Every structure is written in structure tokens, then in C-alpha cells.
């Protein structure tokens, strides 16, 4: 080729004449999902167009910083060949991020001759262009020996640089796409892991179970767990725990801890030994700085007694039958801190519930936002437990977590467990949750009628009470939910000589019922139903809605009066 001998004569339109190849390759990169294969094909076209005996594409190996041959054309297959950083002409091209045109390798001291030594190939001239996007170096394309025996020209160099630029961009994009796909796959994996994890949590317990739990999931994979496991003789083993950290490792550790609990609880060595056994199991598998806070316990409903062991978890709270809280502070460091730290077992303590309830929770609950936007804290948690104390256990847990503000933006999972001593509950107190619909009114009347009689009402009083409850439920259906879906919790109990009825709904609080107790006739004066309620009951009041959720109506009837 004439131009080989006259480097100064390479016309600007030499590049332009190769534009078709650049366009063709750019289009091929754009369409291809297999960038490596496209690069190999591109390399063949480049070698053919520039007219070189051999061509190779090297990419920087992120692990070593050296170059690795990913594709080559020519007599000798050097794919897989590794070059140390800075080796040869190609190393110079990459390091300086400029094209290298070496017309005679003998005159260039950087020429390494690695391939020639290994293969017997004779490299005379080299044209090498770096693959880079802005400052990010990816590798280089190297062409060896101009066909026909001449040297590469500046025009060849410009063409190669143009092709290398478009190749580099394609590679860069492909890597971005791959990284994004990997992130997507990881996100899907995390979603799956969190679904599996939640599926591992115990489902809703039967209403008569003395132990109930609830887990309100923050986004992503969590480290919270709880377990409820019936044992022989009506006793129940339970546990709540929180694994340090977030993400997949925390979730796997949580799964391991939860299954260890299920296995070991059957041995019935007591919760202290149980936690010690879990601790030593955890150390055997190596934790890499992770730990678990956990409370395990066994409840005997016949005695109303809990045996508890606490390894570094938030102190459980006992709410006595009369209200009032007591924290159970006994405990040891968390599980997984150091081998043998818990040898001899986590100290156990015995708690007599005396008709009260034991609450266990994770810091996701205390650190959740309250309705006023501040952190709930211990007082907030106690306030919520007080507010919903009148509800059935499962509904109560539900109501507590529902009253957390910004459930979707929970920073952490909130998990809450309750253990109830129900020995005193056989006093005829009635409480049930119903869908607030006209069709359920007959059921509600029948249950309230039965409960009122069992609590000592005569027939006439019971009929009046039934009427008042029915009218109040109608108000909930028609005015609170305004025809929409919702539940109403009906409570009928006796407090000294008073029959006390409480109706709780979960509709937005009506303005008048919000701040302080008010007489019902402030709400809807002249309503016939309201008038009937007031006529048959001694007191009808809206109580302040617990934690701003729903409406709480209390009706009181002095027993034995006609």
C-alpha cells in the first residue's frame, strides 16, 4: 500500500472512508447481548480492514490489574494469556491511555516479545489502541504486523482508535447492564429470602391460645423472629429474638436460630439451658461478628407461671391484672458473643402473672414512630398496651402495631409477643371481634344477651342491654364506617355492681369523640337509636380513642335495676 511508505500522506478522509465499518460495528454492539462474541467478530473485521496478520483484545483483570487476552485472530491463539501490569507496548498504551504505533519492534525497548518467545511468532510492527471510557481504562486492542510486510500508518492508527472508542463504549455499557442485572437478581433474591423468612414465623394462633405474636415487617430482610410451640400438658414454649445487622447474613442467622429453638425446645431442659445450647451451636458455625438477642420461655397456663431466660434482649414487661407495669430485668449477654460465656446456662427467672400478661418485643417496636412523630419508647409501648388492654390478645397486638405511625417507613421490624394468664378470665367476661355489617347484628345480640345473663342481669335488663349494643353497632356500621368494611370489638364485662359494655371500632375517630369524653347526645342529637341507648343505660360515653385509633364507646348499666 502506497500510504504505508508515506505516513505524511494519510488523508483526513481515510478515516471517513472507514466510517461504514465504525457505523456497522457500533450498530452491532447496540444490538448484541453477547458483547464478547461481538468484540471477537469486530476484532476480525478490524484486522481485515486495517490489514494486520494478527489482532488481540486484552482487558484489564480487576483482580490483578494485569491484562488478560479475551479474543484474538491470527495464526497463534493467545486467548487466556496474561500480562503483568505495564508489560510491553500494550502495557504502555493502557497506562498512558494513548495509541501506540511501533513500526519496528527492534527499535522499541518496551517490546516484551513474550508471545514471540512462547510461540515462535515474529512480531515486526505493532499498532495498539487503548480501550477506555473517559478516565476508566478497560484494556486495549493490539494489531500485529501489517499485511504485505509494511508498517502501520497514522491513518491505521486513527481508524483503530475510532473503532476502539466505540468498542470501549459497548463494553462499558455491557458491564453496566450486567451490574444492574446482578443488582436486580440480588434484589429478587432478597425479596425471596424475606418471604421465606416471614413464612417461617408462626401463623395466627387459635383464639384460646395463651400466647400470641405479631411481626410487622419493615422493608427488606429482617433479623426479627418469634416462635410459639405447644408442649405437653398444655404448656407453651415461646421465644422472641433479634439478630444483629441486616441483610442476607442476618436473615440466615435468624433462620438458623429459629430452627435451633424449634429443635431444642423439645428437649425441655428449661429456657436457660436452651439458650446456652443455641449459643454453642452458633459458635460452632462461626458468626463473623454477628450476635443474637433472645428471650426464651415456657408458660404453664394452669399455674399462670412463666419461666424465662433473657440473653441480651429488651427486658420483657409484665402488665398486672390491675394495670401497671414491671420490667423483668434479669438476663445475660447476647448469644454468639464468645464461646463458653454462657456456660452453665442463661439465668432463669420465674414470673407469676397473677391474671396479668407478659409482653416481649424487639427494639423495632420501641424505636418505631408514635402517632405524634416521636419515637415510641418504653412509655409509648406501655401507653399502647394500656389503651388496648380491653381487647382480645390477637386483636390487641394487631391494634398496637397498627397504631405505629408510618408503618411503611418502619426502620426495623417490629415484633410483639404476649403471654396471658387467663385463669381469671372464666368470670363471664365476653369479648369478640365482629365484621361491622347488618347481617352480624343477630349474632352480636345473641352473644351479648347470653353474656349479660351470665354476668347476672335479669331478663328485662339483658333485653335492654342487647338493644343498646345493637343500636351502638348500627351507629358504627352507618356512621363510623359509612357503609365501608371494618370490624367492631364488643366487650361485655362486670366491674363490681356495674355491667360495662365497650364497643371499639377502627374507623377514623369522629371529631367530637376525639379529645375528651363527651356525652353521646353531643354527637348526634335527636337520633332515635342514640336516644334508646341513653334511655336503657345509665351512662353512655365516648372514651378518648386509644392512641388515636378508632372510636371507643363505653356504656354502663347498674346491675339489678329494672
Amino acid at each position, binding site marked *: 500500500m502506497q500510504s504505508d511508505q508515506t505516513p505524511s500522506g494519510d488523508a483526513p478522509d481515510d478515516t471517513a472512508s472507514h466510517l461504514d465499518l465504525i457505523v456497522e460495528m457500533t450498530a452491532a454492539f447496540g444490538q448484541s447481548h453477547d458483547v464478547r462474541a461481538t468484540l471477537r467478530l469486530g476484532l476480525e473485521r478490524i484486522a481485515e480492514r486495517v490489514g494486520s496478520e494478527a489482532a488481540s483484545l486484552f482487558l484489564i483483570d480487576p483482580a490483578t490489574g494485569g491484562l488478560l487476552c479475551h479474543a484474538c485472530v491470527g495464526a497463534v491463539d493467545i486467548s487466556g494469556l496474561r500480562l503483568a501490569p505495564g508489560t510491553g507496548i500494550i502495557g504502555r498504551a493502557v497506562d498512558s491511555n494513548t495509541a501506540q504505533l511501533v513500526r519496528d519492534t527492534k527499535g522499541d525497548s518496551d517490546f516484551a516479545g513474550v508471545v514471540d518467545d512462547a510461540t515462535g511468532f515474529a512480531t515486526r510492527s505493532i499498532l495498539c489502541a487503548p480501550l477506555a471510557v473517559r478516565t476508566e481504562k478497560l484494556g486495549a486492542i493490539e494489531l500485529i504486523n501489517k499485511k504485505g510486510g509494511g508498517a502501520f500508518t497514522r491513518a491505521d492508527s486513527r481508524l483503530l482508535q475510532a473503532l476502539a472508542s466505540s468498542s470501549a463504549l459497548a463494553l462499558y455499557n455491557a458491564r453496566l447492564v450486567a451490574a444492574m442485572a446482578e443488582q436486580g437478581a440480588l434484589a429478587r433474591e432478597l425479596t425471596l429470602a424475606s418471604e421465606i423468612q416471614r413464612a417461617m414465623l408462626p401463623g395466627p394462633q387459635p383464639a384460646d391460645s395463651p400466647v400470641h405474636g405479631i411481626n410487622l415487617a419493615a422493608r427488606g430482610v429482617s433479623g426479627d423472629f418469634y416462635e410459639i410451640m405447644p408442649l405437653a400438658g398444655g404448656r407453651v414454649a415461646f421465644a422472641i429474638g433479634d439478630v444483629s445487622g441486616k441483610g442476607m447474613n442476618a436473615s440466615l442467622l435468624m433462620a438458623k436460630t429459629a430452627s435451633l429453638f424449634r429443635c431444642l425446645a423439645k428437649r425441655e431442659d428449661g429456657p436457660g439451658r436452651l439458650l446456652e445450647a443455641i449459643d454453642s451451636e452458633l459458635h460452632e458455625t462461626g458468626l463473623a461478628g454477628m450476635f443474637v438477642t433472645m428471650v426464651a420461655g415456657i408458660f404453664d397456663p394452669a399455674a399462670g407461671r412463666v419461666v424465662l431466660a433473657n440473653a441480651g434482649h429488651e427486658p420483657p414487661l409484665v402488665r398486672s391484672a390491675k394495670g401497671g407495669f414491671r420490667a423483668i430485668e434479669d438476663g445475660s449477654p447476647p448469644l454468639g458473643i464468645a464461646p463458653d460465656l454462657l456456660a452453665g446456662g442463661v439465668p432463669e427467672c420465674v414470673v407469676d402473672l397473677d391474671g396479668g400478661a407478659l409482653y416481649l418485643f424487639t427494639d423495632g417496636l420501641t424505636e418505631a414512630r408514635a402517632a405524634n412523630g416521636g419515637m415510641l419508647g418504653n412509655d409509648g409501648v406501655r401507653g399502647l398496651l394500656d389503651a388496648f388492654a380491653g381487647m382480645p390478645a390477637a386483636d390487641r397486638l394487631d391494634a398496637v402495631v397498627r397504631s405505629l405511625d408510618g408503618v411503611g417507613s418502619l426502620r426495623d421490624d417490629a415484633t410483639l409477643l404476649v403471654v396471658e394468664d387467663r385463669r381469671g378470665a372464666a368470670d363471664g367476661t365476653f369479648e369478640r371481634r365482629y365484621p361491622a355489617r347488618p347481617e352480624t347484628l343477630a349474632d352480636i345480640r345473641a352473644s351479648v344477651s347470653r353474656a349479660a345473663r351470665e354476668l347476672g342481669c335479669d331478663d328485662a335488663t339483658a333485653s335492654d342491654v342487647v*338493644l343498646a349494643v345493637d343500636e351502638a353497632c348500627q351507629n358504627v*356500621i352507618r356512621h363510623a364506617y359509612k357503609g365501608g368494611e371494618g370490624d367492631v370489638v364488643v366487650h361485655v364485662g362486670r366491674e363490681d355492681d356495674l355491667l360495662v359494655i365497650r364497643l371499639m371500632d377502627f374507623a377514623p375517630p369522629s371529631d367530637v369523640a376525639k379529645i375528651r369524653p363527651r356525652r353521646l347526645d353531643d354527637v348526634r342529637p335527636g337520633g332515635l337509636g342514640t336516644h334508646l341507648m341513653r334511655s336503657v343505660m345509665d351512662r353512655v360515653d365516648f372514651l378518648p380513642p386509644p392512641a388515636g385509633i378508632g372510636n371507643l364507646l363505653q356504656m354502663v348499666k347498674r346491675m339489678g335495676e329494672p
Partner: protein
Amino acid sequence: MNLDSREIDGAVVVTLAGEVDLSHSPALRKSLMDLMLARRDVAVDLAGVAYIDSSGIAGLVEAYQMSRKNGTRFVLAAISDPVKRVLQLARLDRVFAIAETVEAALKG
């Protein structure tokens, strides 16, 4: 709730039985309104009503008001104790025309 109506001596006797609450009162109201729009004399036999609430009473009140406007007769007959209790509580026992029996209601 059971609702049955039949013609006797040119009047319509509506017999209500069972429990009349929010799930049935719309049906009761519609039956009574149809009769009022047809300007019929109506006697409602309430002997078999075990329970009635304010929504059921409201249906009776609405019929009563229309009958007054139309100049037709609307009589409650043979009211059961639960109905009597609610009418008393609502102070409506002296508003409605109330007959001891259906026969008396038809004669009146």
C-alpha cells in the same frame, strides 16, 4: 324477619315476625312505603316480633307519617312485649294507633 301481607275487608294486614334489625328494616320500609303510595289502609300485626330496633321503628314512623298525610289508616296491632318496650322508650306508644288485636284494628 318474616313479612307477610294479605287483604282483609279492603285493608291490608302486614304480619311481621322474628327479629327486625338493620339487616331487614330496608325491606320492611319498602313494603310499607309501597302500600302507603297505593293509599291503602294498613294494619301491622306485631304479635310475633321478638326484637325490633330503631331502624325498624323508623320504618313504622315513616309509614305513619305518610298515612296521616294521605288520610289513610295505619294501625299497629297485637304488639309484643319487645315492641312495646321500644315504643315506650321512644315515647311513641301514644303516637301510633295501637289495637289489641288485628280484628280490633280492622274494626276501628
